[in-house]
């Protein structure tokens, strides 16, 4: 008989997320549902405010991708007002973006996703001399894998293992799970990088703070450009950025890259991570300007995994629907015209597999009705995966020279075919490849900035907001979790309507009216779970998308008595997600 398994909370993500699967006697997932369990309503709050206030407010959608929403929201206002920002400002924004991507991807792989791949307890039985030697197999210049360093790392793990109560954040995880594939030595190498990354990421956060004032939540953009002109004109400050950049670029090349090559070697025979993905449509948008007409990421759409053809994006074809989301208006709508009449129906009572394998009464998703605060975005009615893998595939298929080189080198080094990229492992590798693309090329932007500052010191364009005019515009591009777009309408000098279509919404959304699943849910179907009380396979797949659920749900609206109680005008209810 089939059983239901709930994983809630899914930890090591941003936000509040639940996955629920129906599993047959053979342990194979027959159906899967993903629900976001938090709603904050920022788009409702945006309405009626001064457009200049919106970017800082939208930034608060997420403190992890802390710069993404700030930037795209600023770009949306600039697009609406018809502002072209100075070249210097473009390049500084890219440098801050580079810091964001490098920080985000490293932290995601090591601290959020890492323990899905690395068995920390297994590292205890590693031979550190052997591990130290092994590290050279994956890179010529290993980081943090000297025999002595590995010995220290091992001692730390030993402390954890001796006292299970003292494991702190490592307590009660799925150690020893059958789908862990690294040898003890490989686990030890990766574990050493886990600790090293904790230090490195702080340096990268400083990289952003140099031009951003602080991190998280930098505060140096203005509609029209950037405010940090003093930092740009200070050579010591620029030098500081460069030094930190070199530190992280080195780590990406010799730790992150090496560990993914190692993962490809060991996990390419693990069915739960090589299972072909459920949705093979990918969408990405041009971003990361490093020079005039020179971008690291390209725009386009790939359908059914066919890399031979890339379609151009028609922004009018982006819609969102709410058949299974907690809103009343089910039909697909374009973000500029989206309405939302919320309709929370909650969970239903039922028995699911508990922590000891016995059935326990729980609050279950009712998949026949509505079950998530996330909507279902579609492109021409089709679900799309967005994210670093989508970005790399589109840029690769479009022949972006820098991207082609990074991807081809990796395929050659690991010996895996391009088809293997359409998997959980591929998604995790794609994120690293994007980090490498940036680590290898962001300096182009830095050098162009230095050159341009010699002849041009403009950093912020001027503009006026005419209260008698109506404006609309969008900011769109690829951020660390995929394609993000913010859509704004301005009337009487204030925000008339605001919506954001966020990467995790594309990926985590529920079924649409045709029963078509989004990438998260589609990916879980057919997955074999070894132990229903330790659903590591589920978590690994979900984490491979780098969920950012506060992002995905920030825009929902609510309804019923709450709506009237708190005076939300359903006509303007924000919400496209």
């Amino acid at each position, binding site marked *: 008989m089939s059983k239901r398994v709930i*994983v*809630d*909370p899914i*930890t*090591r993500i*941003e936000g*509040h997320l*639940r996955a629920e699967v129906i599993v047959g006697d053979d342990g194979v997932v027959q159906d899967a549902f993903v629900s976001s*369990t*938090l*709603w*904050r*309503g920022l788009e*409702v*709050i945006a309405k*009626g*405010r*001064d457009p*200049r*206030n919106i970017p*800082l407010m939208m930034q608060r959608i*997420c*403190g992890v991708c*802390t710069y993404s929403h700030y930037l795209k929201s600023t770009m949306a206002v600039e697009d609406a007002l018809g502002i072209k920002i100075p070249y210097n400002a473009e390049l500084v924004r890219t440098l801050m973006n580079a810091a964001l991507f490098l*920080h985000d991807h490293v932290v995601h792989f090591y601290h959020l996703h890492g*323990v899905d791949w690395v068995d920390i307890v297994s590292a205890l039985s590693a031979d550190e001399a052997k591990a130290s030697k092994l590290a050279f197999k994956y890179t010529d210049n290993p980081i943090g894998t000297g025999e002595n360093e590995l010995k220290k790392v091992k001692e730390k793990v030993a402390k954890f293992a001796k*006292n299970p109560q*003292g494991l702190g*954040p490592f307590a*009660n*995880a799925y150690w020893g799970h059958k789908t862990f594939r690294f040898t003890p030595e490989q686990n030890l190498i990766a574990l050493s990088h886990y600790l090293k990354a904790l*230090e490195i990421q*702080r340096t990268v*956060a*400083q990289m952003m*703070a140099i031009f951003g*004032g*602080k*991190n998280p939540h*930098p505060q140096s*953009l*203005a509609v029209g450009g950037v*405010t*940090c*002109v*003093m*930092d740009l004109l200070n050579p010591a400050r620029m030098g500081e950025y460069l030094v930190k950049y070199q530190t992280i670029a080195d780590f990406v090349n010799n730790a992150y890259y090496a560990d993914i090559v190692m993962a490809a070697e060991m996990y390419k025979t693990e069915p739960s991570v090589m299972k072909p993905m459920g949705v093979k449509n990918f969408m990405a948008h041009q971003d990361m300007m490093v020079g005039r007409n020179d971008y690291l990421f390209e725009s386009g759409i790939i359908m059914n995994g066919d890399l031979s053809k890339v379609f151009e994006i028609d922004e009018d074809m982006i819609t969102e629907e709410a058949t299974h989301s907690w809103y009343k208006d089910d039909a697909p709508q374009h973000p500029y015209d989206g309405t939302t009449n919320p309709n929370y129906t909650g969970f239903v009572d039922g028995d*699911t597999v508990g*922590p000891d394998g016995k059935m326990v009464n729980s*609050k279950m998703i009712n998949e026949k009705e509505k079950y998530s605060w996330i909507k279902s975005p579609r492109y021409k009615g089709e679900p799309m995966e967005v994210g670093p893998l989508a970005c790399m595939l589109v840029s690769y298929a479009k022949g972006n020279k820098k991207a082609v080189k990074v991807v081809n080198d990796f395929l050659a080094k690991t010996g895996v075919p391009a088809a293997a990229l359409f998997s959980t492992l591929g998604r995790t590798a794609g994120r690293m490849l994007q980090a490498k693309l940036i680590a290898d090329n962001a300096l182009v932007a830095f050098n162009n900035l230095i050159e341009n500052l010699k002849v041009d*010191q*403009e*950093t912020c364009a*001027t503009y006026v*907001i005419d209260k008698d005019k109506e404006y609309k515009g969008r900011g769109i591009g690829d951020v660390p979790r995929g394609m993000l777009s913010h859509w704004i309408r301005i009337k009487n000098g*204030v925000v008339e309507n605001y919506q954001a279509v966020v990467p995790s919404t594309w990926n985590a959304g529920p079924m649409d009216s045709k029963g078509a699943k989004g990438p998260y849910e589609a990916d879980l179907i057919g997955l074999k779970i070894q132990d229903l009380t330790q659903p590591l396979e589920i978590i690994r797949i979900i984490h491979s998308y780098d969920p950012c659920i*506060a992002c995905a749900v920030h825009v929902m609206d*609510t309804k019923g008595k*709450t709506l009237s109680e708190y005076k*939300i005008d359903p006509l303007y209810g924000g919400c496209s997600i």
Partner: protein
Amino acid sequence: MKNNNLFNKLSSRLDELSNLPKLDDEVSISKLIEEKGFSRREFMGWAGAMTAMLTLPASFTPLVAKAAEMADRLPLVWLHMAECTGCSESLLRSATPSIDSLIFDYISLEYHETIMAAAGWQAEQNLEHAIQKYKGRYILMVEGGIPHGESDYFLTVGAHGKTGEQSAKEASANAAAIFAIGTCSSFGGVQAAYPNPTNATALSNVTDRPVINVPGCPPSESNIVGTLLHFILYGTLPALDVYNRPKWAYGLRIHDACERRGRFDAGEFVEQFGDEGAKDGYCLYKVGCKGPYTFNNCSKQKFNQGTSWPVQAGHGCMGCSEPDFWDKMGIVHEPLGDRLYHTVFGGLGSDATADKIGVGILTVTAVGIAAHAAISLVKKPKE
């Protein structure tokens, strides 16, 4: 004499703490700091700076150092409500391995959704376990506003669909001390801005236990760690201002210790971002700086281990550690006294409430500043 009494009081408190069992015999903060390459001298230097930040006499430095070493006696539970994880990130991504962050890394984090390895049922067990085992002893830090009352369902966690409000209440009931980390759990934050569609509210509104507010969006790591150290040292609530913020951190106006204050006094203002004044570091009041109305130590402590802070990056303060700042601080790039657009409340709200903001000293200051800016405009006309 007064200092002596305090010194003795804090010493005996630390002695008491050091008699408590360590949560993990294998971890010692002082050893760890040494392992990470900090000398005893550097550690004491850090303790000295922290002592000054906590507005204690320099002679208290050894006590602060000892308090830091006692951090491994305190189990910590960190709950996520309606939030963006920025506050957690503030600690996790804090600058080059600093002593602040080290202490935080190695404190006994019993439950923290962003970094814990466990998930699902196992994660729930960790939380229940921590609350039972350390009943009355753990420190609770809460990040995020809390959907409240009849709209509590806007946040549920776990297979039983428990609401965030319920979790926060239960965890608060058994905590030794409760800190609201960030503006959201201190005051409701961005989701509580008008029209507050989820009825999000501050932690202090869902528990009757005393809550220390550590606002900021996000607060700097030093304010978070400082609050923790203060509790270790005193075992009581710090001196608080009217919004329950520790006075040692939130006692001073940003404007008063601002590096551009001299420019303000000289009447030198940035008129537009990117202008000549901006290149020379002029005062940002006219492009919207809310430093004169904001109480925090950003201008002294900065962020990311002293890397920068918004005013250094040429952008005014947005007032993020003040209650309801999203609704009350007006337009971000215009002076508070010079609003051209209606913002919220149908054009009455922000404008109306802004005039009421900080009845008393702030209003007087605002008027004074606006007048000062007006005079300087006459003195230094736009080119």
